[in-house]
Each structure stands twice: as structure tokens, then as C-alpha cells.
């Protein structure tokens, strides 16, 4: 549906550039289509950045005002032979302190007098990027030099400009750095915070924003608060690492979870929380791997079907077979719940017991969800769940109450947390009650909070997620609002339609849409401004400033990126901890990527070529793979000569659990297939529709061929490289069944997020 708005922009004269390994329906409506080798986005983007730096095409005012361009990096910072300073070869890890700024006596970053000072971030940037010439980039990516230059000119000459991306950018072992490359480009162009700018994640799941906000991730607590590690046994240890600014929100959360039991004297029950081991990875891949090793006993899965959607499926299957108990809650029977029925598998050899719990669909229950623009919207219902199905909300509530009941007579220390937890939800209007807990209360007045500003660090407020404070402002569920008429900005903000976190802000970093004096760069399309008469930041949007009355002449008036301690955009992601003089600790300590302060190009784990920039550092130096050697072989280009890129398709969704049970979607696209270029089809003597065997180091499947000229062979570092593509939406259950592409894909993961490299692995293709 986002294409609707791309088309609308196009009608108004916007230029559309589409970068994809494969020519698609999006390419068709674009002004410029760029075919790229999967996994080489950094080499492409960095060449554009280099062109901008070399020819002084950046927005000088913007970078001086709103980024760390003028800040001085410490003298030891360097990049050599593929790695930055602070790298440990043995641990495959950086000590990020090596990327710090030069600090003054008060612990504040030192600023240079001029951009050209050799120690500035900007000089460091220029030095780093100069290797990315058009020619080098072209050799790596397969994009002709003239195309890269044409795209660079288009982005420079068509400002403001926005970037829309999805999993094509993130499912790589350099997923985070791919997005960092966007960040550097957009900061240099002044394309952040103003209307029509930004870096927009077109996230792939209906409530993936909410599910990450609420931290269904091992390394966070709700609201992106770092999950406590074993070596942070006390709240003060946590605060020292992550800052007093965030400690306030953690205390607010602990009060929501433990109520009166949480007091300042007992560290607000922080000590009761389970502590993860700081050196362990608890991502979903480790769930299946530890199950394979019989360490994981019990797995509860809600609305997810990893037996289709996870990479390297044989590990998933073996993991599920190693469990004692598997519980799956879903709408339809899934490949995960019935993994023991997988064709070719003998159920009598599988000891796992499985419970399937019928879940109510989104149309059969109430609740809120958050879209890619952080807009929280309410879902109503008007029908009962199918059969005896229940909402996951009811299931969790019932299950927790039953578990708690089993522990009611226990006096063991380990069970104290269960007894102290506040958990008491009504049968009726349960979702609303939970949303009120999430919004938070002032415990002294009993009133619902109206915003983040009311949250206190002394335990006098309690709420489940600081980001959502205000969704229930004025005792009204604002996610239900539907004012689609009122838009004083004329920019489509519609402030009375639903509610966005934080505080109903629609455009993050909107302070950067104004100059240092608080005057909008574009008076025609303004979001916010400093009002000298009332001495306040005002606007059509909620101003993204630390304090609404702190004007441009104060430090707080110059912090468009206020979630960083230094308050400005980081061209180089320098590590920095902002001192809190009152509490004698860090006020803020925003994280930096684990694998480098600047986006460097590394080849995918399975690559058809060598890394021309630094042959000795072929792949991301922080990557640890394989984790289990026998199950995670790495294919070579000699045995597996073609690059496989995989994705979902418009007509089916993710694992296909829902869409493959809809007959007319199955009529649109009925099975897994492989798109191959005409040149490869000729070589293999395969015609459109004929079957081929596709094989990777991890598995093989048979699928039909779609011979296409939407893919063309590429010239990579003077060798011909062939890219093929497959959708991954099928499995052995549902109304439409077909081979699972993820038997082939690789489960190497980005060192920051552990996202798998499903966009680039190597395969062989043979006629059947």
C-alpha cells in the first residue's frame, strides 16, 4: 500500500529510483532502475557518499548545525586493512571505547573551529570514504559506473529525498551497517527531520513495531531498555552502564510489574529479574540450536511458523525434535506444530509432545497495534472467535494464573518473583485494562499519565512502557481516534488520527527541519518552529526537543537527535557517554554498532568473489559463524556457482500460514519457483515451467523454473556472476503446499541483531 504514496509523490514530480537484484513491478514505475548484486549495498551507497564528499555536494549548514561533523575524534581512531581500531582478532569483537570523541575536562566532546581540521569527524569521514571510487563500487556491485553517477546526481539534485527500505537491506550479515550507510548519506544531504525526508523501514509484520517496542527480544525490556546482564546485579550497575535518563524508565516499569513490592530500598525488585549471561546469544537461532543439544526443553510459539520462515530449516527441524514439549498457538495448522508429520520423517522416532492451541484471528479480538510510523491503532471486533479459539491475551492470562497457582505453596527464593508480580486483569475489556497499565499511572493521584514528561524516577509513577505514556492521556484511549479531516500542516500529519509514540509525534527529529535559530528551512512546508513571543517550540507536529521551553540559545535547543548524549546526528558513530553531574553517573550512553562506527563493505558469508578492498578480511570481522560446524557448512563458488536471493511476494505472506489457506491467493501464486536469467536457462537447457534441482551446502529442493529477463547476469570484478531468486512462502501444510526455500538459506547472523543472511547465499541449479 505504500506504493500508493510513492505514486502520489511521482504525480507531483518526485523522481523514483529502485535498487533491487531483480526487475519487479516497482522497477516498472520507477524513473531509474538499478540492478545490484545481493549483499553489496554498502559498496553502492558509499560510492554515492564519496561522490558527494569529493564534489562538496553535501548540505554544509545542516551538517555543521545538526551532526557531529565538527567534533574531534580521539587521536587513536583509525581504519586499517578492513578493521577499525579496538578490534580483537581472538574475540572477533571491538572495544568500542576506541571510537570515542576527544573530551574536555567536563567530559563534553571537543569541537574544532573548522570542518577541515584533520581531527574532525568530517575529515575522518572523507578519509574513510575515499577508497569507494565509482570503479571499485561498480566492480563489487555489478552496477555500471555511469549508473552510479546518474543515481548520485539524482539524489543530490532532488532534495528533500526519502529512502524506503525493507528486509532486502537488513537480512544480511551487514544488515545494521547497510542502514548506517543510509544514515550517513541522508545526514550529508540534510535529508532527516524535514517533511519528505528520512529513512523509512517498511516493516514486514503487522505489529512488528509493537512487538519490538514491547521487547519480545532477548536483549531488551519494554521500551528498548537494555536487558540486565549477570554482571549488573544491582540497579546502580545497570544505571552506570545505560544512563540515569533510561534508569527512570526502568524504575517506572518495575513499579508496573511489582507494584507496592517495589521500593527504593529493595532496588524496586530489580534483583528478582532473571539476568542473562552477557557473553551469550539468546536469539531464536540459539533456541533451536540448544534444543538440538537437548538443553532447551519447553518451547511456546505464538503466531509464528519457523518451520517455514527460518533459515537453514534442517536445524529448526532437529531442534523441534529435541524438545520435550512444544506448544503452538495459531489460526491454522502450521508446519511447526506438525513438524513430526513432515514428509519423509518417521513420527515414531520423535519424542516431542505437542500442544496446538487454536488462536482467535485479528478480526476476532480487540487490542492495539503499532505500524511502521509508530502509529498505535485500535482493532475492534464484532464476531466471536471460531470454534473454541481464544485470543493470545486470554491464553497468556489463563496460563500465567495456572502456573502461579502451582507455586502458591512454595517458599523457595526462586519463586519469590512469581508471587510478587502484579497480575490481575479483568475478564471483560481486558485489552483496554492492559493498555492502561502500559500507559501508566501517577501512583499518588491514581490518574493515568498524560505523557512521558510525567514519569518519575522515585517510584511514584508506574507504567509498562515509557514510550506509550500518553496513549491513554485524559483517560481516553487515543488509539481509537479517527479524525481524518484536520491537518493544519497540509502535509498529511492528521494529529487527531490515532496516536503515535512518543507523545503523538509524527516526524521524528523534526527539530532538524529548523536552522540553529529555530526557523524552518522551508517556510512553505514547516513542521515546527521556535516562537519568540511565547518562548516555546510550537508547530503542526509535536516538537522533538528535550524541553519545549528551552530555546535555540540553550544547549537543549540544539539537540535534534536528543536520544544521543551529544544530541546531534552521528556521521561517525562515535561512542559517547553523557555525564550526569547531579547523580554522578552517566546521563545517557547510547549504543553504537558492535561491528564498526562506519559502514564498511564486507562480502556475504557465501560469496562468488573475493573482497577487493581487503582480501584478508573477506566477511564482517565480528561475525561468528558457523556456530555448530556440522550443521552450518559454508558453500564455495566452485561447488555452488550462483547467488540466491530470496523474499516474500505480494500475494503470499511470510510463512504462508494464513495466505496459503486462502483459495484465491493460491490461485494467484500456487507454489515455490525459481526465477533464472535466460542465459542460465540456455546453459542448463531448461525451459519455462520445467523442474530444476536447487542445491546449497545445507539442502536441496525441486521447483519449477521461471525463465526471465528480469534478472541479467552481472560483471563482478571482471567475472560473470549469475543471480537467481526464489520466494520462501511454502511448506507442507495448508491448502497450497510446495518445497520450502529455507532449506537452502544460510543462518549466519548480523553481529548486532542476529538477523540471518537470507538475501545472499550460494546455490547450484541443475535440470531434473
Amino acid at each position: 500500500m505504500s506504493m500508493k504514496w510513492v505514486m502520489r509523490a511521482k504525480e507531483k514530480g518526485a523522481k523514483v529510483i529502485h535498487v533491487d537484484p531483480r526487475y519487479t513491478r516497482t522497477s516498472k514505475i520507477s524513473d531509474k532502475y538499478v540492478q545490484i548484486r545481493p549483499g553489496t549495498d554498502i559498496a553502492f551507497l558509499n560510492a554515492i557518499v564519496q561522490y558527494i564528499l569529493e564534489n562538496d555536494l553535501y548540505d554544509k549548514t545542516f551538517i555543521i548545525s545538526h551532526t557531529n561533523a565538527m567534533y574531534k575524534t580521539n587521536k587513536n581512531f583509525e581504519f586499517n586493512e578492513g578493521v577499525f581500531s579496538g578490534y580483537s582478532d581472538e574475540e572477533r569483537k571491538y572495544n568500542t571505547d576506541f571510537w570515542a570523541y576527544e573530551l574536555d575536562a567536563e567530559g563534553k566532546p571537543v569541537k574544532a573551529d573548522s570542518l577541515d581540521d584533520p581531527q574532525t569527524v568530517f575529515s575522518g569521514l572523507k578519509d574513510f570514504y575515499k577508497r569507494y571510487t565509482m570503479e571499485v563500487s561498480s566492480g563489487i556491485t555489478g552496477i555500471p559506473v555511469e549508473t552510479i553517477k546518474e543515481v548520485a546526481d539524482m539524489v543530490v539534485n532532488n532534495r528533500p529525498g526519502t529512502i524506503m527500505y525493507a528486509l532486502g537491506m537488513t537480512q544480511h550479515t551487514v544488515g545494521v551497517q547497510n542502514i548506517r550507510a543510509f544514515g550517513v548519506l541522508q545526514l550529508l544531504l540534510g535529508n532527516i527531520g524535514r517533511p519528505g525526508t528520512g529513512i523509512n523501514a517498511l516493516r514486514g509484520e503487522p505489529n512488528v513495531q509493537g512487538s519490538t517496542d514491547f521487547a519480545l527480544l532477548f536483549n531488551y525490556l519494554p521500551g528498548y531498555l537494555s536487558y540486565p546482564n549477570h554482571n549488573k546485579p544491582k540497579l546502580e550497575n545497570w544505571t552506570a552502564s545505560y544512563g540515569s535518563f533510561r534508569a527512570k524508565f526502568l524504575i517506572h516499569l518495575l513499579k508496573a510489574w511489582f507494584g507496592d513490592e517495589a521500593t527504593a530500598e529493595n532496588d524496586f525488585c530489580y534483583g528478582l529479574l532473571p539476568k542473562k549471561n552477557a557473553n551469550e546469544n539468546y536469539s531464536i537461532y540459539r533456541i533451536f540450536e540448544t534444543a538440538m543439544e537437548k538443553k532447551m526443553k519447553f518451547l511456546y510459539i505464538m503466531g509464528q511458523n519457523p518451520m517455514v520462515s527460518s533459515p537453514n530449516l534442517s536445524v529448526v527441524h532437529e531442534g523441534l525434535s529435541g524438545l520435550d514439549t512444544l506448544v503452538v498457538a495459531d489460526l491454522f495448522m502450521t508446519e511447526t506444530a506438525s513438524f513430526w508429520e513432515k514428509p519423509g520423517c518417521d513420527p515414531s522416532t520423535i519424542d516431542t509432545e505437542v500442544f496446538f492451541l487454536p488462536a482467535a484471528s485479528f478480526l476476532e479480538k480487540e487490542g492495539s497495534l503499532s505500524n511502521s510510523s509508530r502509529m498505535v491503532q485500535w482493532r475492534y471486533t464484532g464476531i466471536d472467535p471460531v470454534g473454541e479459539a481464544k485470543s493470545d491475551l486470554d491464553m497468556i492470562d489463563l496460563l500465567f494464573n495456572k502456573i502461579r497457582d502451582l507455586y502458591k505453596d512454595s517458599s523457595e527464593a526462586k519463586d519469590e518473583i512469581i508471587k510478587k508480580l502484579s497480575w490481575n486483569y479483568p475478564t471483560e475489556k481486558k485489552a483496554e485494562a492492559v493498555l492502561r497499565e502500559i500507559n501508566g499511572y501517577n501512583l499518588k493521584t491514581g490518574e493515568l499519565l498524560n505523557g512521558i514528561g510525567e514519569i518519575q524516577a522515585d517510584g511514584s509513577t508506574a507504567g509498562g512502557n515509557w514510550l506509550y505514556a500518553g496513549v491513554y492521556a485524559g483517560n481516553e484511549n487515543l488509539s481509537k481516534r479517527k479524525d481524518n479531516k484536520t491537518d493544519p500542516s497540509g502535509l498529511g500529519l492528521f494529529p487527531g488520527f490515532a496516536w503515535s509514540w512518543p507523545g503523538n509525534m509524527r516526524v521524528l527529529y523534526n527539530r532538524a527541519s529548523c536552522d540553529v535559530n529555530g526557523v524552518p528551512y522551508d517556510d512553505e512546508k514547516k513542521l515546527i518552529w521556535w516562537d519568540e513571543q511565547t518562548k516555546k517550540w510550537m508547530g503542526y507536529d509535536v516538537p522533538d526537543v528535550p524541553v519545549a521551553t528551552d530555546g535555540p540559545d540553550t544547549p537543549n535547543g540544539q539537540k535534534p537527535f536528543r536520544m544521543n548524549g551529544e544530541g546531534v546526528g552521528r556521521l561517525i558513530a562515535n561512542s559517547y557517554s553523557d555525564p550526569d553531574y547531579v547523580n554522578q553517573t552517566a546521563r545517557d550512553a547510547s549504543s553504537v554498532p558492535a561491528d564498526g562506527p562506519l559502514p564498511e563493505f564486507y562480502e556475504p558469508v557465501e560469496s562468488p568473489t573475493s573482497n577487493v578492498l581487503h582480501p584478508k578480511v573477506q566477511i564482517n570481522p565480528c561475525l561468528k559463524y558457523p556456530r555448530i560446524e556440522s550443521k552450518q557448512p559454508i558453500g564455495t563458488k566452485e561447488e555452488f556457482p550462483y547467488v540466491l536471493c530470496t523474499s516474500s511476494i505480494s500475494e503470499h505472506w511470510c510463512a504462508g500460514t494464513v495466505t496459503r489457506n486462502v483459495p484465491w491467493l493460491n490461485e494467484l501464486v500456487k507454489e515455490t519457483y525459481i526465477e533464472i536469467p535466460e542465459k542460465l536457462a540456455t546453459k542448463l537447457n531448461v525451459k519455462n515451467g520445467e523442474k530444476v534441482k536447487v542445491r546449497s551446502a545445507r539442502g536441496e529442493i525441486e521447483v519449477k523454473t521461471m525463465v526471465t529477463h528480469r534478472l541479467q547476469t552481472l560483471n563482478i570484478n571482471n567475472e560473470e556472476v549469475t543471480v537467481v531468486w526464489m520466494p520462501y512462502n511454502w511448506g507442507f501444510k495448508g491448502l497450497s503446499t510446495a518445497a520450502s526455500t529455507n532449506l537452502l538459506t544460510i543462518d549466519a547472523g548480523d553481529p548486532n541483531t542476529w538477523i540471518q543472511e537470507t538475501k545472499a547465499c550460494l546455490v547450484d541449479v541443475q535440470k531434473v
Partner: protein
Amino acid sequence: MNMNRRNFLKTAGLTGVALALADLGFNTKKIEASTKEFKLSGANEYTSICTFCSCGCGMVCHVKDNKLINLEGDPDHIMNEGGLCSKGSAMSVVPNSEERIPTPLYRAPRSNKWQEISWDDALNRIAEKFKKARDENWIEKEIDNGEEYVVNRTDAIGIVGGAQNNNEECYLMAKMARALGVVFLEHQARL
């Protein structure tokens, strides 16, 4: 009357039919009565938000006799202005599909079939299995670099879900998981 676009279209549609037929000499009173038989007449309406990508498109659902009889894009929604993609517009199938599983099911170790069980039975047994895995695999303390730390967790339980779940469900999952000592808490954020 607060005439939003959706009501406007509905009313305009019906009036238009009546006027057009009146032009042909029909008795419009009778026709008005027959419009009650139109597909959506008498249906209750509620709104929801699509369940596929993260655009957050609005949907209007029509219900008669506790059955979803129609689903379409919400024309008053700022995101989709009435449009839906191929998947979103197919969603009326979901509450009406015979493929939906109506009751809890159990598959015993080494068995080759599912058997129906009651909710009570299912939840009681799941709660017991949960407790067993937790109690038998509890890690109270861990030693790192010669120093002992209290960690209070279990590495034998995994909870996975919810980009398909509503915010309130996600929140309770996180709260339950952490209260029970679970650190393997994950979902499909990477898909």
C-alpha cells in the same frame, strides 16, 4: 449528522439507485423497502487494522448473525483511503474458513496423530510442563572471572511470538516470560 465519507458513499449509493429507478417509472417507496435486502443492510459494522505488512491499513468489517459477511478497505483511513492489497482484501476468508482449528489438540510423544483435548486439560498440562522445565533447569548463580553472580533464570524454556499479536498481548508475554525466569524470549522481528 457527522457525515463521514463512508456514510456518504453508502447513502449516495442508495439514493442514486432510487433516483435512477424512479426515472424509469418505478415506485421508489417499494424500492426503498427492497434495499433492506441489499447485502449489507442490517449488518453491524466494525473497524480493524490489516494483519499483513506494517502499513496499518484500515478495514471495515460487516457482520450479520455473528458472521463476517463483508470486509473492505476503510475509505476514511488516512493510510489506505479505501484500498487494500491482494492479501488484505482476502481476509474475510479467515473467520469463515473450514481450515481453522476449532479445539486444542495434543500429539503424544512418538504418536502419528492429533487428538482433541479440552482447554482446561491443555492449559493444566502446559502449566505443569512449564513448571517442570523451570524447576529442573533453574540456574541460581553463575561464576564469571572468579566472581559469583545471582542470575535467577532458566535456559530450558523458550517463548517465541508476536509480531502477529496485539500490543497488549506482546506486553503480557514479556511480563510473563521475565517473571518466570525466561531469557530465551524472541519473535519474528527478523522476518
